[in-house]
């Protein structure tokens, strides 16, 4: 184990441009595929780890094109954290191509999964909705997986990781309760929203919101006139009170749907990506809080 660490440390210092400083601080280099995972790693790893996210703030994890710099980050990582569930199909190829020796953690391992065969996007992936982190209970499982991964690559930090993970999970429990309480306050018949892509299935299931996605497909690819017509009919028929934009999707289509149905346009919901640190959803917890407050605002009678 000692040899392996030594080898990794030298590999890191060789590969990273800031390698020298890195090796001195002896931080564990961790690569997460997108910002939400990066935040969870940061919460558990604290000062012992150095996390980078491949897809940046407000970036789209579905449509991502790795750059050579990303490849270098992956090659230098001791630990790679991915969501799994076919969300980031590109990461295994990127890891292989960059010659990474990192341990890979699939954060969604063991999470309660949601099947939705009716959805074109998910059907390609065996019908499983990959956005599991939108249920705070699943985020706790993500945290446990990340803790396990960190301990495996850095056994010396075991106590610290366990303590930080425990403290963070307590925060998540509080967040979960907060979300439930907030949604309960909305009258039952108004707990319905439309979003630009199907990322809130887990959130809806966990907290009792009915959702209709406007694209019904992933963020890539064209949408047909039939799809748009279906959504408009659905909103009119079921009287959805609000439609929501997401930070990663094309807002123009949502505007059109809102205009045509008279539904209220809610604020921006964050689904697959955090905002920049100074934005409204800089961390996972802030993101969930932000989403809850936007939902409550738009759905309140």
């Amino acid at each position: 184990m000692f040899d392996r660490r030594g080898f990794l440390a030298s590999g890191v210092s060789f590969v990273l441009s800031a390698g020298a400083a890195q090796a001195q601080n002896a931080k564990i280099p961790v690569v997460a595929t997108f910002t939400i995972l990066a935040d969870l790693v940061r919460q558990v790893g604290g000062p012992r780890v150095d996390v980078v996210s491949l897809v940046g703030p407000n970036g789209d994890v579905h449509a991502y094109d790795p750059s050579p710099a990303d490849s270098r980050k992956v090659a230098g990582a001791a630990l790679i954290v991915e969501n799994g569930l076919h969300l980031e199909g590109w990461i295994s190829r990127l890891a292989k191509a960059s010659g990474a020796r990192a341990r890979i953690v699939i954060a969604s391992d063991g999470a309660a999964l949601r099947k939705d065969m009716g959805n074109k996007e998910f059907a390609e992936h065996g019908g499983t909705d990959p956005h599991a982190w939108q249920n705070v209970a699943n985020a706790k499982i993500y945290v446990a997986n990340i803790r396990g991964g960190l301990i495996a690559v850095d056994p010396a930090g075991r106590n610290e990781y366990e303590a930080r993970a425990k403290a963070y999970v307590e925060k998540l429990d509080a967040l979960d309760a907060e979300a439930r309480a907030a949604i309960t306050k909305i009258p039952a018949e108004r707990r319905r929203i439309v979003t630009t892509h199907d990322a809130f299935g887990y959130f809806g299931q966990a907290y009792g919101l009915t959702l209709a996605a406007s694209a019904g497909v992933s963020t890539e690819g064209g949408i047909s006139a039939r799809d748009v017509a279906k959504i408009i009919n659905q909103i009119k028929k079921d009287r959805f009170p609000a439609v929501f934009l997401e930070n990663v999707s094309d807002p123009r289509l949502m505007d059109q749907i809102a205009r045509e149905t008279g539904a209220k346009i809610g604020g921006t919901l964050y689904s697959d990506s955090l905002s920049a640190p100074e934005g409204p959803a800089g961390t996972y917890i802030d993101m969930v809080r932000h989403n809850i407050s936007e939902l409550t605002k738009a759905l309140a009678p």
Partner: protein
Amino acid sequence: MIYDLLVAPFADFEFMRRALVGAIALAIAGAPLGVFLILRRMALSGDAMAHAILPGAAIGYLVAGLSAPAMTLGGLAAGVIVALGSGVVARATILREDASLAGLYLVSLALGVTLVSLRGSNIDLLHVLFGNVLALDDATLLLLASIATLTLLGLAVLFRPLVMETLDPAFTQATTRAGAFTQLAFLGLLVLNLVAGFQALGTLMSVGLMMLPALAARLWTQKLDAAIALAAAFGVASAYIGLVASYALSLPSGPSIVLAAGVVYFVSLVFGRAGGALRRLPKRRHLEA
């Protein structure tokens, strides 16, 4: 039944009406441009220009976000620079117009991609730049209509010198000074239409709606005015059929419109009365006999 298929989508949904109006504006303005591009043997230039404006639009997006004016201005600037540049190069050097355009648009494209990646954005720009015909708001529709109007008026004014310049550039150059101006004004209108097109269909798709009806029309008539009218009619029909197909068969709308134009083109290839395959076959037999 027929009503449900052909009329109901437009009667029931505002977004379908908007899509149809936007696509019709594009088709009508694109028709004369497409016909002239073919006559000038620049059928591929539309595509090249579309690539040339893409980086400008991308830069507009990076600076101002998803704002139609910024992306339009950026695209327009990039397109005009490339169009003017290739016109100047064609007149000042031995390179022909197509060759100088090829050189400049490739540089423009590479420059744009470089600028975008310097900015380090992870947003898939192509995704953003591929406009959606189903999401045309008032501002975009107005832009499309204004550009179509300007194009038709501009071409009406330029018509004679443009025909002359197209058919006999050497003569035009020798006898008048209108040649250079006409050529540049034509390229300017082309850029304007491509910029309009990327708001509605995405850059590459909008070239399809410009060229395919014009190519099809050329197979039915040799007369310039008839070809332009026919191309406009084909374009409008393709827009309508494409949207109906997108609605009925659940196909993505932009490609569906261009595919409809493609069908018109293939039918014209076979049956066209002025140069279609079927018309040419018996003629050859007659000569052999």
